């Protein structure tokens, strides 16, 4: 295993540990939200100005972006045989996902 592969393996496991907690909280939140209403007003009424949740979901987005990008890179290399360029594509995907996710967090907390 190269040093890069070792680092990616470690990052994948470290983000998995963070995501394990985040996903359990998110699943509980989804069940609560579904029962409390899924209209725009109901959603924004629960999220607007909730900076604690913004920090939690900001960290969730970052962990999911890193974890997802590394996972897609692995699939591209193992199933599609895409060796050259898969790392660059995964990095771009990670940044795009994080920016899109943080934009979503900002939207529901600040609008």
């Amino acid at each position, binding site marked *: 295993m190269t040093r890069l592969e070792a680092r990616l393996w470690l990052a994948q496991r470290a983000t998995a540990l963070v*995501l394990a907690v985040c996903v359990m909280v998110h699943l509980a939140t989804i069940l609560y939200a579904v*029962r409390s209403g899924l209209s*725009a*007003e109901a*959603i924004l009424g629960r999220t607007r100005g909730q900076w604690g949740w913004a920090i939690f979901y900001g960290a969730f987005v970052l962990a999911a972006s890193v974890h997802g990008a590394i996972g897609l890179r692995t699939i591209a290399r193992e199933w599609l045989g895409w060796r050259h360029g898969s790392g660059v594509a995964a990095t771009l995907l990670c940044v795009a996902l994080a920016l899109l996710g943080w*934009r979503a967090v900002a939207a529901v907390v600040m609008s």
Partner: protein
Amino acid sequence: MNGTRNHPAYWAFLVHRLSGLALALFLPAHFWLLGSALQGAASLEANLAWTHQPMVIAAEWGLITLLAAHLAGGLRLLALELLPWRDWQKTLAAWAAGFALLAGLAFAFAR
């Protein structure tokens, strides 16, 4: 079908990989929809209206089940890699499947 593919660990690997792929493809749409709140509650509401269709609700149920499956499968993987309990592989895979089903059912009843 050969012996390797007939093993529960192979199916656990496949479910984990495919659920991860589906979740990674879903995330940009999820972030984009929530981000539409930046244009105001009316914009978010217009996009949410699309999600009230029966087929979309069924897809949401599938995604919740896949999220729970990916979580439980990931915890199983972390336990296998980081803890000395390898004889429990089949039991962990069964617990992972049971947890995913339970989460999906909880969402279906709540929705």
